[in-house]
């Protein structure tokens, strides 16, 4: 590549960067240093190339984890500044520092690309979000979920679930909860363990517990039962310890809601992009 051509490409990318990352041209956001709003395909492509060159050996080509952890969904969970900081300065557990190898634009392009890996599917929204909110309110969902500070924390918070999951995934979660669990962010060299794994436990004394796995190590496990209470066990003290992917403490809304209501509820959930 000639030097002049390189300058032109740089100028072009710099212009793209300015257009995409300029806070004046993007929608207002509560965070500084947010991911590129509405990234251009060129940004995502650049991010993909940088990711595949620098990151995929450890995190896998799909970000699902390899020598390093599963990082699908990481920008939404930790926020772009934290991810940019981790890329720049590295972090404990094996993540190298890329300062000097990647500039700020490349880091943001990688984050933009990572965001495309967070949607497990796309699907389409066909319902009405406003009606969906009514369905949410009248179906008892807030008894287990928190949206923008309101509700109960038995199940996962849904404040930005529309950023993390596509409509098809949300529909499946409403109708067949527990059948397609997301990978948790844990520092394993393999893919992460599944979030919300259903666990059935019977202690040596004969006490039975059902719940979702909150955390597990090789010796212990903590579960959260359907009332939101945590229970901590040493595995050596258990008579039965069964992981049952496919089951869930969340009831299925299949048959309880009409097809239209499910569509509306999915539209509402898909519209949840963050705290207001």
């Amino acid at each position, binding site marked *: 590549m000639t030097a002049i051509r390189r300058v032109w490409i740089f100028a072009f990318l710099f212009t793209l960067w300015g257009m995409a990352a300029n806070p004046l041209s993007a929608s207002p956001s509560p965070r500084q240093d947010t991911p590129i709003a509405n990234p251009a395909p060129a940004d995502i492509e650049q991010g993909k190339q940088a990711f595949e060159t620098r990151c995929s*050996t450890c995190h896998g*080509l799909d970000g699902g984890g390899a020598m390093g952890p599963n990082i699908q969904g990481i920008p939404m969970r930790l926020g772009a500044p934290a991810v940019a900081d981790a890329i720049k300065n590295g972090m*404990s557990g094996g993540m190298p*520092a890329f300062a*000097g*190898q990647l500039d700020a634009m490349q880091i943001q392009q990688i984050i933009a690309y990572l965001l495309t890996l967070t949607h497990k599917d796309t699907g389409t929204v066909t319902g009405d979000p406003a009606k969906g909110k009514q369905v949410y309110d009248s179906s008892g969902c807030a008894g287990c979920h928190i949206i923008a500070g309101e509700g109960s924390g038995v199940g996962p918070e849904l404040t930005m679930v529309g950023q993390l999951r596509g409509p098809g995934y949300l529909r499946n979660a409403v109708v067949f909860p527990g059948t397609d669990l997301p990978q948790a962010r844990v520092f394993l060299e393999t893919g992460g363990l599944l979030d919300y794994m259903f666990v059935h436990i019977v202690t040596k004394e004969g006490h039975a517990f059902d719940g979702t796995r909150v955390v597990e190590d090789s010796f212990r496990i903590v579960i959260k039962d359907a009332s939101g209470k945590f229970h901590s066990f040493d595995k050596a003290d258990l008579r039965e310890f069964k992981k049952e992917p496919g089951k869930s403490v969340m009831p299925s809304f299949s048959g309880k809601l009409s097809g239209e209501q499910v569509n509306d509820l999915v539209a509402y959930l898909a519209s949840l992009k963050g705290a207001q």
Partner: protein
Amino acid sequence: MRIAKYALVLSLFLAGNPARSLAQNVSYERILHSQSEPQSWLTYSGSYFSQQYSPLKQINRQNIASLKIAWIYQPSKPVSNLESSPIVADGVMYITEPPSTVTALDVRTGLRLWSYTPTLPEHVVSIGLYATSRGVAILDDMVYIGTADSHLIALDAKTGAVRWNVHVADNVMGYAMTGPPLALKGKVIVGIAGSEAAVRGFIDAYDAKTGKRIWRLWTTPRVGEPGAETWGNGAYESAGATTWNNGSYDPDLNLIYWGTGNPAPDFNDDDRPGDNLYTCSLLAVDADTGKLKWYFQFSPHEDHDWDSDEPAVLFNATIDGKPRKLVGFANRNGFYYVLDRVTGKFITGAPFVKETWAKGLDANGRPIPAPNQEPTLGAGTLVYPSITGGVDWTSPSYSPQTGLFYVSVHETGAYFIKGTGKIEPGPPKGIVGGGGIRALAGEQSYGAIRALEATTGKRKWEFKLLAPAWVPVLSTAGGLVFSGTDEGNFFALDADTGKPVWNIELGHSARSNPISYEVGGKQYIFITAGNVYMAFSLP
């Protein structure tokens, strides 16, 4: 002129002053006979045989339940990628703080005695690795560290003052040092990292007193050199075979045993037909001359990133009624090997984890390839073990007491995806060649501590772990095996049965060698995790 004369007189005085040489002296002879001073830990893996074994037995199966934290040390600044294994000698523990700081601690209390931090470039190049240091070496009155920017630095063991500093290789080209040096017989032996940046590997020996390079053994050949015929395309610039961990040493044979890493580019083998010597091999090297005495290549023409940089475990045992000098090696490719360490001849080998890439080993230990196990474009090929192998670089342990080889294994596979990039001249911009893997889900993977009969590889017991772990193993004469989990447990197992007898959650996975030492009549077990260096003892 006058100053020079005074300097000469002073240096002659110092060199001939017996008081100085007695002040702090971890002589070669002391390291040779390290088993006779179990209170110390004088090399990376406890002895030149790299057995990760402690003859101490104050802490044992009967009393381990009362093992408690004795002290904790934390660096003044938080560190990343803590994989530092200490040296313990004469009341002092020498640790590294990533990337390249050396610190001396009071071994009884963990209090800091001195600390040395080299000046590193603003941007240290670390491609396919992270800037860390797995530890130092000690010899006589000096401590040695290989730095993230590829310098070898000798420090005064009493003060941390720099005695000499030599430039080993060009960090801008991707060369980095992460492994601990090996000090022996007036020399400091070091390896180098950077295969993913397509550097050419080597092993170097430096004069321990002066830092002058004595020999260099390149680990890939150039055209016209032996082994060049194993790199197709004639003039291909053979790259890789880096030597980024620690070696072992047999003083009777005067041979150093050092493992080598993958060829470059890793996931694209189009331009390098042939076996690609001496990648993914164990090299036996004459300690005086640096001449290659023999090699054993575990994974010819490798393209799954299965380096062979784990320290080779040397042990002696009887096979078919004859006493033999042996090497035990649990390779990243999933096979456990027993080699004759005099000749390098293969004795036996068997998978120690699930593997799908080879149908077995032939009479010479060469793998018999299984079909369709190469990385492919698109969705990739599912192969066992994964990129991290049956075990990666983390040290196994051999107990002369049980005759067992203890290793922390990874039971998982991955989809291997072929890269399309080529090696380009000039400083590397990233991992050369591209490609990579898609990992299996966590629920489809697990880890284990496995005890293998060292002479056969036959499994005696296993203790399952939730996830594949990156924690080295220590065995002790107290009948215990120490290791950790990726979830943050540090635990002890019964060395005979694998039954867990003690564990504690450290809040972060350990990554350094567990080691053991004794001071003031008390045995300690040492480990690191997160930002923390800690020692355990009985109350």
